[in-house]
């Protein structure tokens, strides 16, 4: 029964709340759709925490996404044991990076007075959920190892069944009949993943939805710098369109 609630019903509740809530928040307070930056208040600890955390998270997110979208490619890559180890080790490394990053960020928020002034309760909820998510993910990798492989063959069909509105709860409920620790950790990982999706509109998580992805392919910004600002103070030296070298004009 609990399994059905968590893996058959929670996904839809989470997705519906995320969609409706995000649209509502965006239309109601569009300017608040961001994760209020506090770099201005504390920059040094933020740098280390944020770099480790975000690089780890981005890579893990992309890894899960690839496993979901092109599972056959993951299986083909993992065919050779050496490649399997390379993938698993680097994924575990990114997870450790995220874990260390989030711990640094939690320490920063708990010990810096300025940051506490701008924290709200949901920020602490975010930290709790993220911490559960990362630790359970590491535990899945450790106790139920070669997760990259069985994600492609078991989790991908489950997630597809969720999107096809016919969730195959049995697959998760009886994922393992012999390894209870791994089973518990997988269930925790999936549940907290859906919780994260569900609380997106109410937390700083909204910044996923407005991540400046287009920065990757946007054009360079042209910064025009007047090299000698003493000379151009005199308008006689400025003849637009002729030459950039003011001294020769």
């Amino acid at each position, binding site marked *: 029964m609990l399994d059905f609630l968590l893996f058959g019903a929670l996904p839809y509740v989470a997705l519906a709340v995320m969609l409706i809530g995000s649209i509502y928040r965006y239309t109601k307070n569009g300017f608040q759709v961001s994760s209020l930056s506090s770099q201005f208040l504390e920059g040094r600890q933020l740098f280390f925490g944020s770099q480790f955390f975000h690089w780890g998270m981005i890579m893990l997110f992309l890894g899960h996404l690839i496993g979901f979208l092109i599972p056959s490619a993951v299986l083909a890559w993992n065919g050779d044991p050496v490649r399997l180890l390379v993938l698993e080790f680097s994924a575990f490394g990114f997870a450790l990076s995220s874990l260390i990053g989030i711990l640094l960020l939690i320490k920063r928020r708990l010990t810096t007075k300025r940051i506490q002034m701008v924290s709200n309760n949901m920020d602490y909820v975010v930290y709790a959920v993220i911490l559960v998510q990362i630790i359970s993910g590491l535990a899945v990798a450790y106790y139920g190892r070669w997760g990259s*492989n069985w994600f492609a063959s078991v989790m991908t069909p489950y997630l597809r069944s969720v999107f096809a509105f016919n969730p195959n709860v049995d697959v998760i409920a*009886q994922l393992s009949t012999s390894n209870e620790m791994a089973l518990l950790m997988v269930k925790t990982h999936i549940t907290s993943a859906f919780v994260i999706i569900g609380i997106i509109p109410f937390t700083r998580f909204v910044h996923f939805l407005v991540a400046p992805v287009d920065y990757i392919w946007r054009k360079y910004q042209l910064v025009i710098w007047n090299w*000698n600002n003493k000379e151009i103070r005199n308008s006689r030296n400025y003849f637009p369109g002729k030459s950039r070298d003011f001294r020769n004009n």
Partner: protein
Amino acid sequence: MKLKLIGVSVSMALSSLSATAQDGAAVFKQTCSACHSIGKGKLVGPDLKGVNTKRSEEWIINFVKNAQAFGEKDADAKAMITEYGYPMPNQNVSDADIKAIISYIAENSPAEAVATEAAPATTASAPAAQDPALDPANASDEDILAGMNIFSGKQRLENGGVSCISCHNVNHNDLVAGGLLAKDLTKVYERMGAAGVNGILSAPPFPAMASSYKDNPLTEKEIYQLSAFFNKAASADVYSHQRAYNSNLLIYGGGGAFVVIASIIMLMFIERKRKCVKEDIYKRQIKSACSK
């Protein structure tokens, strides 16, 4: 209108009921036959011949739906689970289907259901003894090697299924540590025999495994080669080394990877930390002013 709708739904429910009832044979083949036979000896699970007279319908339904939970309440079920070493995986079949299966078993159990106890014993070895060329114990070295490559994923499965090593471990000198999600298969051949391995691989009874191989089943040849490998691995286990790194493999590897990742992040972005964003512009400004 409402009455008409109810009538339609009731008739639909009835017709679906009768459809499943007729399909006892089909459901048995799909759900049970991987591990159970009727009158042909025990495979992975017991022979179901005459089970309809031995157990009540209610008992069978409870056992099929959740053997582990039922085993905690019922002494007979518990004895059964301890005898076979593990509980039967929960089956997602309706009561009507189970009843259809029971009536199918009843129809197909010969009248002398309570036969001599020697009869099943002789038939038990029958599937393997049928054709000595197909007995994995007589497999050639090539087949054993092919089985190992299929297990580790080096040789991809013909229908594109996932390799065994993702979830299972076999202790073998030539293999990396296998998955921990599902049972260790080093001794699987001793536990289940050729018939059991064949049954599970051709129609997996575990939901996660069934879903993995639903659209890309193993071929008969692959199953034979895997059985040959399992047979060899079980007998060679005594000679293989214990892997000292086994459980901490990921910790060491992941820790190493983290050091590399952290170094890359630092090398790429430490400038942002050390310098002000506008530092280059600022320096250029000073330089051009000084060069005057």
